[in-house]
């Protein structure tokens, strides 16, 4: 039996699942927006602006979810500053939850700046202060700010998986592939979110087709990493015999990866495939987190 079965469950449930899902989408969408911002054409601007907007709202929602989930939400700032020694910073480079807190803060900052730049481009900013910030970003810094946001976005999508691996819990600490899996899922769900939302900002058919083609490749990478993840679990895989195994197989692999891949190959409507990808990304977090959360130490020790 893996030694991880003797640890205690941290009660990371729906708020954390939602954060991992939203953070993945925001990070993935931001990466794609930054790539298109740097290397795309003028007709791709709606995709860029949508991506930065998804990133900004996702980062804000992520911060709110994480704060509400704390046992003492008003002490959220203890992760950023030494509470007894303000303004000394609180940072542990070897603790994913510590550098994740800083990364989310910075990601939020750069994503919001990029989103304001995008909104200034569309002439949608009416508040003078916001218009000034958006205008400043747009006036030359846009690509640099967007690029930094994109890099931080990949980090946000992936560090949540590393955070799970850097524990002593069953499944999470039994495989080094969760971070890579969440990066791939962040990319696929980020692209799916853009496919669904970018048409509202006037994205062209050609832009959407490129996103769809990228999503197909991201799904293939995700499937490959998922296979490596399951293979690396070895004897721990017995935890999948049950409801969460069914969710992983049918929900994540079947509905979330294979079905949208088939739709992409058959060139069926983009939106249906994108919705399935989002469902699969959500169920991936649900299955990996709740399958481990359900394992209680004292029951394992008692052979129950």
């Amino acid at each position, binding site marked *: 039996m893996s030694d991880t079965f003797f640890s205690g469950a941290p009660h990371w449930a729906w708020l954390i699942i939602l954060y991992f899902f939203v953070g993945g989408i925001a990070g993935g969408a931001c990466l794609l927006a930054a790539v298109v911002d740097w290397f795309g054409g003028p007709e791709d601007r709606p995709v860029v602006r949508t991506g930065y907007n998804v990133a900004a709202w996702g980062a804000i929602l992520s911060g709110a979810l994480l704060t509400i989930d*704390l046992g003492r939400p008003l002490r959220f700032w203890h992760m950023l500053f030494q509470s007894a020694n303000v303004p000394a910073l609180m940072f542990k480079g070897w603790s994913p939850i510590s550098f994740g807190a800083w990364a989310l803060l910075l990601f939020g900052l750069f994503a919001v700046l990029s989103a304001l730049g995008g909104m200034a481009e569309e002439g949608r900013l009416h508040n003078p202060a916001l218009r000034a910030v958006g205008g400043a970003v747009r006036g030359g810094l846009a690509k640099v700010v967007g690029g930094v946001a994109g890099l931080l976005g990949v980090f946000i999508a992936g560090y949540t998986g590393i955070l799970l691996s850097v524990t002593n819990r069953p499944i999470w600490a039994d495989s080094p592939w969760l971070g890579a899996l969440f990066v791939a899922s962040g990319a696929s769900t980020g692209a799916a979110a853009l496919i669904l939302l970018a048409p509202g900002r006037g994205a062209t058919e050609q832009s959407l087709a490129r996103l769809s083609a*990228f999503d197909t490749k991201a799904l293939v990478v995700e499937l490959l990493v998922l296979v490596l993840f399951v293979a690396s679990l070895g004897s721990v895989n017995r935890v999948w015999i049950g409801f969460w195994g069914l969710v992983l197989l049918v929900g994540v692999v079947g509905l979330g990866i294979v079905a949208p891949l088939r739709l992409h190959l058959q060139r069926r409507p983009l939106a249906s495939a994108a919705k399935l990808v989002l469902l699969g990304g959500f169920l991936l977090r649900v299955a990996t987190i709740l399958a481990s959360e359900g394992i209680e130490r004292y029951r394992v020790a008692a052979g129950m």
Partner: protein
Amino acid sequence: MPEPMGFFTDTTVCIGCKACEVACKEWNQLPAENGGIRELSGDSYDNTRRLDGIHWRHVRFIEQFKGPYDGRWLMMSDVCKHCVQAGCLEVCPTGAIIRTEFDTVVIQSDVCNGCRACIAACPFGVIDINPVSGTAQKCTLCYDRLKVGLEPACSKACPTDSIQFGSIVELRTRAQKRVDQLKSQGVKAELYGADPKGSLGGLNSFYLLVDEPEVYGLPRNPQLPSRNLAKSAGFSVASAAVLGVLALVGLRKRRMDDMGGPGAGGSN
């Protein structure tokens, strides 16, 4: 500077009286579970079942019965191991978890914000949230008592000296003598966590066991959570690099389009 202090728990003399559990609850003013309404486990005489935010001591009952007249009780008073290399301290993002001058590990309740990373990091399942404070809590090895020269409440209350408190160096010598004594009597006895070169640099709360560690709910080879950091980060970076290249190749505006040259309209 005081020398490292800790517990040596000799499970062979534990009688399961739970005086340690009561003394711990009383001294540390820990609340009753479920508002004091008794809940029985239903399948064991052990009704505490686990260590958590309001049970910092737990007398584990291991009921090894093959038949009505063929079996034995094993009893072990479980507690935080105050690891020399502590996983909880390693991951804590607020700095709430500290190492004291006694080489023990303490959670400062006024700093903790209840993120629960330490719960998942502890290989022994020692820590949990105290619902009253909303923060992660566990045994402090009675830091407040140690500061004024008193021994921890649990070892003070233990009527059989199953829980012994003292300097780690002295406790290790005493524990080895007890193991030798038991072995000379034909009892299979081993120390768990006493080796400073072993897992986690040794445990400042170590045990004498007469069965395999797993039987007592203890991992055979407890490790730090950071063992996975480099590998997990490496694979994540590789995954990000592959997807980044795919995005770059797939999403850039194709130059051939602009140039109107051969292969225009190519890959998509």
